[in-house]
């Protein structure tokens, strides 16, 4: 039985969720199970991320620290600097899908008035919130970059939880005026958050959090440089699992340490000729045969591993993912608000689509990919809205591109067989190109 299976067995009945998740015994058991399975983790960094996530979820559910919900791309450095417990409902939704509870949870979201056309992450969160299965927040923090839906959802849930929603309004343009606008809001949010939670806003602690975030940035850049090697030294599917660190960890001691561990591990493996096998299967020695190298855009289905397993079975590797790309400039702990503002303003997908195209083309060249897959999550207007233009532009540059319509959380929206068929056809195209047909 794997970790997910063990957790699923504890949570088999929804009525048990709150009791199980708020019991310290649960986390002792899960920690123990995780330690038992440590040897089978493909990387020590994967194990430590699991441990980190477990500890933070435990802190959130057992009330050890005020819980603050944080939407994707909200600068959680602010949260870590105030010794609060950040909780990512989007990550929780992904995990609910992995455990097989998404359909039931989304049904509750739909009963609460959320249309099936909106993002399934949010429908799942709405359902879990309506059922009282998520840790009660002291505040909800949302950024309008990158996701437009999260601030809208958090506003609604603010009413449900009677907790304030603090929203960062991020403009599409950049430059000094935009930086001033965002930096001013960041400072206001930080001070408001401190007041709401009774914490002391300490500039030194904030500088420390930004410093750790910069360490994370530097180490992940080091990882990304190592990943340029052929064959790929790490499973890109495993790399997608580090999204927890990107969304929740930046600014924490743990994320800085885990990223350093990850970089060192991959570097050692490269030097020793150890290859990482298929995702989740541990280390094996020897060169990994790579039939096709892919650049993967956006996320993946969390309700089923069928698609990603199929990709690997076809001999393809995710040489790089859009979500792993480090796009923001170095952070200066002496200027925390302006640094974080520049980080928010520099995301390539929060600009004219030409910028996202440019960055993807650059990554495709750098990682010597054979093809590009854009996973178009059904409810993600900001990402999938540009997919056809991205495809046209990248194809003009000579890259084979597959726009794969699917859903990250709601398996009801797509038949997996259809996705696999399209992926197979794409692989055949890549193979034909290799053979010069």
């Amino acid at each position, binding site marked *: 039985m794997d970790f997910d299976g063990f957790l699923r067995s504890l949570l088999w009945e929804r009525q048990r969720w709150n009791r199980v998740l708020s019991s310290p015994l649960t986390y002792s058991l899960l920690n123990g199970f995780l330690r038992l399975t440590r040897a089978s983790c493909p990387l020590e960094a994967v194990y430590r991320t699991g441990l980190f996530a477990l500890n933070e979820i435990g802190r959130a559910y057992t009330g050890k620290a005020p819980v603050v919900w944080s939407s994707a791309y909200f600068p959680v450095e602010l949260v870590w600097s105030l010794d609060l417990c950040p909780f990512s409902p989007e990550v929780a939704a992904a995990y609910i899908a992995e455990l097989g509870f998404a359909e039931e949870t989304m049904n509750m979201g739909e009963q609460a008035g959320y*249309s099936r056309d909106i993002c399934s992450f949010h429908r799942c969160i709405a359902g879990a919130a309506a059922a009282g299965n998520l840790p009660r927040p002291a505040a909800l923090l949302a950024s309008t970059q990158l996701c437009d839906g999260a601030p809208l959802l958090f506003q609604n849930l603010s009413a449900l939880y009677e907790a304030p929603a603090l929203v960062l309004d991020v403009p599409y*343009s950049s430059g000094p*005026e*935009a930086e001033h606008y965002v930096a001013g809001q960041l400072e206001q949010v930080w001070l408001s958050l401190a007041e709401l939670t009774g914490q002391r806003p300490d500039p030194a602690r904030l500088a420390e959090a930004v410093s750790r975030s910069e360490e994370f940035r530097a180490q992940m850049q080091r990882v990304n440089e190592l990943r340029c090697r052929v064959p790929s030294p790490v499973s890109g599917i495993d790399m997608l699992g580090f999204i927890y660190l990107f969304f929740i960890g930046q600014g924490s001691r743990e994320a800085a340490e885990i990223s350093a561990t990850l970089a060192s591990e991959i570097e050692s493996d490269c030097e020793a000729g150890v290859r990482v096998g298929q995702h989740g299967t541990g280390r094996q020695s020897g060169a990994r045969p790579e039939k096709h190298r892919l650049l993967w855009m956006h996320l993946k289905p969390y309700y089923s591993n069928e698609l990603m397993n199929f990709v690997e079975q076809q001999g393809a590797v995710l040489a790089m993912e859009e979500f792993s790309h480090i796009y923001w400039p170095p952070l200066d702990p002496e200027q925390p608000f302006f640094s974080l503002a520049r980080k928010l303003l520099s995301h390539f997908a929060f600009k*004219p689509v030409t910028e996202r195209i440019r960055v993807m083309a650059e990554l495709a060249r750098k990682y010597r990919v054979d093809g590009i897959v854009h996973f178009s999550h059904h409810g993600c207007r900001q990402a999938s809205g540009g997919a056809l233009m991205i495809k046209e532009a990248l194809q003009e540059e000579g890259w084979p591109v597959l726009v794969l319509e699917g859903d990250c959380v709601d398996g009801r929206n797509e038949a997996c067989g259809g996705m696999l068929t399209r992926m197979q056809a794409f692989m055949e195209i890549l193979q034909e190109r290799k053979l010069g047909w």
Partner: protein
Amino acid sequence: MLGWVCAYTPEEVFAALGIESYRLCGEQQATAMQHLLPVNICPLVRACLSEAGARNSGCDGAGMGTPLSGVVMAAACPALVHLANAFQHDRGRSGRFFVHLLDLPRTLGRENEGACLAFAASLRDLAGRLSEFYGVAWDDGAFLDAIERQQQVRLLLREIYRMRQERPEQFRAAGILELVRTAGRTRKEELAPLLRSLVASLRDAGASGSQDGGSAAALQLECLRRQGSPRGPRLLVTGSPLPTACLDLIEDLGGNVAGDDLCHGYRYCLPNVEEDLAGGGTDLFLALSRGYLQRPACPRMLPGEARFAYLQALVRECRAQGVVYHALKFCDTSLYDYALLRSRFIEAGIPMLYLETEYRDAGLEQARTRIQAFLELLGSDSTPVRS
């Protein structure tokens, strides 16, 4: 000719530079440029893209008038951002074409001077880029004139809305939306006399529309007038832009639209630029920014509970017996907004009907049944909701 969509787009800036503008509403049937956007994105945006594409290629068959030389898209939502992207991307276009994504700050349900300052900067930037592209020098005097003319038009439209609110059974709701759309496509110095004539005609129930403005006013009057029953339920319509055929349907089935909170309707009339701008030292961009942002916020602005408070007040003001909430399929702003409002309206005891359409492919027959049932629920009792 500049194309635009969102009610937060400052026509005054275009007018100040002598640039004509055309509000894209996507009501014509066209399929141009559809390959650039996926099917699961706002149908209004897809329709506007086709409208612009057909207009510029002249292949619409109906003669849509002057081709667009550019578009200004307020970054109100990801769909509009991608609409701007699509215009930028369009490979089939030849010649110069101005594409600008206008940053639009969120007011977050409060008096937000930071947002006003940011929007003023955004407007100033737009003015500079337009001036450069079209080779027209910026003139504060022309800007002031444009602001005043636009404000005049808004005041006249608000008067028509006020009259409609008094006796909705005499007004065709779709006609009012058509009038507002016309306002977004007509030079304000030409429109104002027409509207004044229209207002005068509407005030005088026996007038035949012979005032200045001539046959144009008479035609508009015909589009606005109807003879409904005052006993029909009074309704407030809100949500995302809806096909005007939907409003005709509501009225055909016996309802009376007493008010609306729609981007193609009353929201267009809401901006209130401060008076007496001619005094020296006034930052006209900041005044315009405040005028646009300091008004009852649409759901995109994340107004929180203030939104329901505003709609509740509007229900009272319109003496509405029920609310029709229209959401365009894939319009996230409306879909999330509805989820919150639904519970609020239930708590307040205000009957609400939820309608979802795909805009041009309106699915009117499905809507017919639901509207009919809703109107029957409200009954012929003209007692408004006391909330």
